[in-house]
């Protein structure tokens, strides 16, 4: 068991070392010399649009909830088909966000 574990560990270490070596080999000589050091404040501080985009994908999960006690159809076409059979009109509830999410 110990021998197998040691081989797995060595295999991982070798593959990591190999990947780093590859990465280092890919970088052309003199690439470091092209990096600008005198950048403006605007470049360092992220523009608002980028901040907003990143915040949106920052891992916030809107918790799922039951969309009330109403028996909702899956989509407008399904509601229309049911309406044609039952004679009841369609009630279409439109909103921003999703009714089955906590923050809507």
């Amino acid at each position: 068991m110990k021998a197998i574990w040691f081989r797995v560990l060595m295999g991982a270490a070798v593959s990591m070392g190999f990947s780093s070596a590859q990465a280092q080999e890919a970088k052309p000589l003199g690439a470091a010399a092209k990096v600008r050091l005198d950048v403006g404040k605007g470049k360092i501080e992220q523009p608002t649009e980028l901040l907003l985009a990143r915040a949106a994908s920052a891992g916030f999960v809107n918790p799922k909830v039951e969309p009330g006690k109403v028996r909702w159809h899956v989509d407008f076409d399904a509601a229309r088909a049911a309406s044609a059979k039952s004679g009841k009109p369609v009630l279409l509830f439109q909103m921003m966000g999703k009714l089955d999410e906590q923050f809507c």
Partner: protein
Amino acid sequence: MFSKNPVASFMTRYFEPVWESVRAVPIVRIDFGGGKVLTRTLHGNILTSVCTAEGHVLDALPGIYTETAYLDRLNQLRLMAQFTQQQPQAKRTEWLRSYHQRQAEALKRNQTGETFAASKFVAPITKAGIERPVEVVLVEPQPKATSEMPKEKPMPTNVAKDDVANWKALEEDTRLNESTRRRQIHELLADAGLVTPDKMKRPIYKDVLHADLDDPYLGLGKVLFETYPFVKEDAGR
């Protein structure tokens, strides 16, 4: 509202309900540190439309309502749907346009428009009467000076200050929805005639609910970016 039995059971009994998201709702999260995070939605708004099986909008309620007013209006809309079905098919569009025109004019004069009522006709052929199916009739507006809202259930007395403020805000929203916003919707429908919800969605959200769905920042762009000090620098990049 949809978690409350009276509303949920009314909707399921008299309609074929479906919900649809028109776009993502803006969410604001403020991390105050120390584990305190405030999460709120911004600028959300709703539209309740009643449509035929063919997918045409008969009428729509803009925004959020108190429970009593919502149920009252939904009842009117389901009776209206039934009344429309009673009209000859060839005359339905014309009737609908004319109805919305009259309702818009009544609201302009700050008066109650026409309402719908269910009536049962009992034909006494024998000692026991025979009931015909319910018919819906159009009731002419009563000569009142102001449009009347259905009486709300009184707010419970043992409520927190915040709930009182929310209740009052909801009542005020309902009043606005039933006056200015409903008039605008009647005008749009009087002009459009029989139209699908897709065609009405953008004009109603933009002009009635003041939430332009085509604006990625929903009208908040000026507030967010106008005072940003590096606008020119970013633009030049």
